[in-house]
């Protein structure tokens, strides 16, 4: 009963957050001064007709959010006919239909651009996340088990250094190193590869992925190691570990049967909270390695002042993180019996 309730509550909350992000996304691009479309129409060199044309093209002739502005006689427009014919509702309607506008730079629909890049980012983050969790947890368990030995100090020390590395800088350094060792320096695939057999294509992608994934793994592994170590240290000093020891279980059995699950539970929460952080890393890595994902889309959009792409990419990333967070949260509830039954 309570589990259902928690499930509904969390899902509703995630939905609410998504709505908040959608609204935020709309207003950021309306309120802040940087958008060239609006900067453009204020350009004194343009003729009045040209301005009017631009206003209509970008939908800026409509009231922003509601018809209260229609009290102003100049602003009446079509709003008098349809109260939902405002910039905000048009934005929402387009969003529901999957339209995120047209790229200033390539004149292609933003949705198409993002769609082909989304999976590349998921591939990169997925691989990096899995590897950093596996290695981070393993190293953390080992460090906690051998606490206060030189192995432990080495693991903690290197994790702290890894944690302190700016992601993009590590990427640059690895790129520098990789360039001398025959690794591809940019992109996801060598041009012309698509005519090759599938296995070779995959091998090529894997070679392209190696350095970005390595960067990702090193940076996040440090954090997971530290968290796993401290979580396991806590668990291993609990009384029930002493009980297990008194029961005659050996160290391996105690770790396997009594410590790991308990220590992993806090890690699930941390992974969930970290997702936003993870995306920050992905942007930097993709920018360095020109990996064709959402992160490099953001990077390129910033460089080219391509605001529809920036707006779309931000929205997509935020929604993805919120949903992934929800999944992690629900997983936690499912795994921990103390939450299940109360």
């Amino acid at each position, binding site marked *: 009963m309570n589990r259902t309730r928690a499930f509904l509550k969390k899902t509703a909350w995630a939905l609410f957050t998504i709505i908040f992000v959608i609204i935020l996304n709309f207003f950021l691009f309306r309120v802040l001064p*940087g*958008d060239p479309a609006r900067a453009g129409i204020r350009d004194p060199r343009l003729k009045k007709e040209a301005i009017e044309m631009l206003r209509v093209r970008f939908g800026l002739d409509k009231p922003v959010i509601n018809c209260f502005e229609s009290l102003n006689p100049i602003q009446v427009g079509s709003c008098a006919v349809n109260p939902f014919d405002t910039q905000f509702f048009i934005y929402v309607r387009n969003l529901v239909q999957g339209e995120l506008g047209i790229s200033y730079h390539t004149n292609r629909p933003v949705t198409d651009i993002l769609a082909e890049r989304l999976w590349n980012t998921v591939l990169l983050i997925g691989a990096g996340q899995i590897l950093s969790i596996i290695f981070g947890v393993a190293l953390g368990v080992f460090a906690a088990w051998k606490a206060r030995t030189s192995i432990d100090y080495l693991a903690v020390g290197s994790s702290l250094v890894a944690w302190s590395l700016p*992601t*993009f800088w590590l990427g640059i350094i690895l790129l520098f190193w990789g360039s001398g060792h025959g690794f591809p320096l940019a992109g996801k695939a060598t041009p012309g590869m698509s005519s090759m057999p599938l296995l070779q294509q995959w091998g090529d992608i894997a070679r392209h992925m190696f350095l970005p994934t390595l960067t990702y793994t090193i940076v996040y592994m440090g954090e997971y190691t530290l968290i796993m170590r401290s979580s396991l240290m806590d668990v291993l000093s609990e009384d029930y570990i002493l009980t297990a020891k008194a029961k005659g279980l050996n160290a391996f059995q105690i770790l396997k049967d009594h410590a790991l699950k308990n220590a992993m539970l806090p890690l699930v929460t941390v992974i969930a909270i970290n997702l936003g952080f993870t995306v920050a890393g992905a942007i930097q890595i993709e*920018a360095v390695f020109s990996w064709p994902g959402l992160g490099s889309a953001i990077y390129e959009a910033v460089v080219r002042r391509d605001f529809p792409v920036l707006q779309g990419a931000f929205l997509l990333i935020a929604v993805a993180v919120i949903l992934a967070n929800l999944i992690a949260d629900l997983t936690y509830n499912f795994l921990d019996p103390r939450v299940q039954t109360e």
Partner: protein
Amino acid sequence: MESTIQPSEQNQLLSRFSGFWQSFKKNRSGLIGLGMLVIILIMAIFAPLIAPYASSSTSSAGLSDIYNPPSAAHWFGTDDAGQDVFSNFIFGARVSLTVGFFAAFISIIIGGIFGLVAGFFGGRWENFIMRFTDIFLVIPDLPLMVVIVALTKPSLLNIIFVIGLLGWTTTARVVRSQTLAVKSRKFVLRARAIGAGKGHIVTRHILPLVMPILVVQAVLVVSLAILNESALSFIGLGDPTALSWGQMLNYAFGRGAMSTGAWWALVVPGFGIVWVVLGLTLLGQGLEKVLNPRLETHHLMPGRPSVQSEAGWDVAKKGTLLEVQNLSINYVNEGQLPARAVENVSFTLKEGELIGLVGESGCGKTTLMLSLLRLLPAAGQIVNGRVFFNGKDLVTLGDEELNDVRWKGISIVFQGAMNALNPVRTIGEQIAESITQHLPGFPKENIDGRVIELLDLVGIAADHKDHFAHQYSGGMRQRAMIAMALACNPQVIIADEPTTALDVMIQAQILELLDNLRKKLGLAIIFVTHDLGVVAEMCDKVLVMYGGVTAEYADVDIIYNNPKHPYTQELLKAFPDLTKPKKKLASIPGYPPRLEALPAGCRFAPRCPSAFPRCHTEQPMLHDLGNEHIASCHLLEASK
């Protein structure tokens, strides 16, 4: 406040700080972090004096100056504009640190206030603030920063505000939970009971305990702000007029340092970021460790090897199940003298016997019990003595053989069963585990039946088998713990304060259960407790411990009706007796000794009403008074 108390408050602040510094000094990683930061701060402050070139010496740059490798003139080479990388690195520290500190300042103020208000006032405020925080916690912050900076002017001020205004969420959460924790402590309730107002409680009680956490958090937030600034600059959203380390990297990466192989232009600025962030992280960890000291030990760490002297022990007596001879245990911590937690304790346990081990907190009774199965924490070391169980010396037994004795020969019912049971495994699983561990031949299909039988034995219905510890009440958990202890039919059960935290009636139920089981199964029990009444009701023999040594050891009737040790005598007078309600209770002056400051002579001497000079200098021997009655007191020498 009043001017008159200010000087003393300042002194206290000073003494508090010096106390803090004393413990921080011992923290190596914290000191290293602090040192790293001091170096970089000095460098940033005195940048014009240190840097070999002025910050904007672009004018003279020609094509031949671009990306020159390190040389005597340019220690770390030149960059894409022909500028000295080393000088830019030094001036860049100013920019990066400024952004980091000011942005973090904004975050800390906002997060601190939000957290404090939410935690302290609770109710609607808390709900609103925490919901708001949750939203910002899940929105990925770097993309949001990118969007906002891209839409506004990428000036240093904007960057500071954007990073600051988006970086407060974790601080708010941390401060809120600390505020809640402090608020629920009894001294805040006491302040309310005195009549203190909210302002007084916040400034006098909440803030002093939230502040340390906030400082640690601030260190973390500064490092995150510096990382965020560098990422923003690298993406191309840095202030082009202020050359931060991130901006240097942006220029170098974007303008061909890679293709020209100018590694120095890429390595040096990044090294600065790593240096500062690592310094901050180490400092934060050091502060955290001082403010919230943890032992950094756990139950799987290898213990110290046992030591035995060759002399002073006999072979195991016949007819005894468990015989402890001259057992001594020290706690050994680096840089300190070993603490003598238990010294020279002996007792025997026969089949079906129930021995009570009585003493106040810190008398070494739990240490003694844990040492029997070599379950001491890592700092504990058996420094002498033997523990014979069925003729085998457990002190020297191999690890695997010892694991066979654990639970199958001797099992333990721990104090506070909530913590002694694994919270994420069902009670049934935990009982079954001990069966599969020790009785490998036990038919798998019968295990369930055996678990139910054991639960039934302690009065728990079978349908609770698949429940978790948190679904049990305190009394049931203790019953489950007993069922688990019985699973492998042990000969001896050690019950370590099994009823301490329980209500009187539940306590009586558990005691009755143990007593019945003992009679039914012929168990021998070592019952550890501080409660003299319980001992009188149940035990055959009693070992009274004081400050780690045996005070008196005898038959239960002798202990209560003819005690010889002054401590036993005084303790009985201090214990309320319902049958004599009008009797005034006597108290023993003073306090039990601390392990790190044991008295030189008899450990009870400072509190003993009959102590004489010799008691303060010489530790008394154990005197055998016949009839297995032993007591350690100088007064008994004459009577022997």
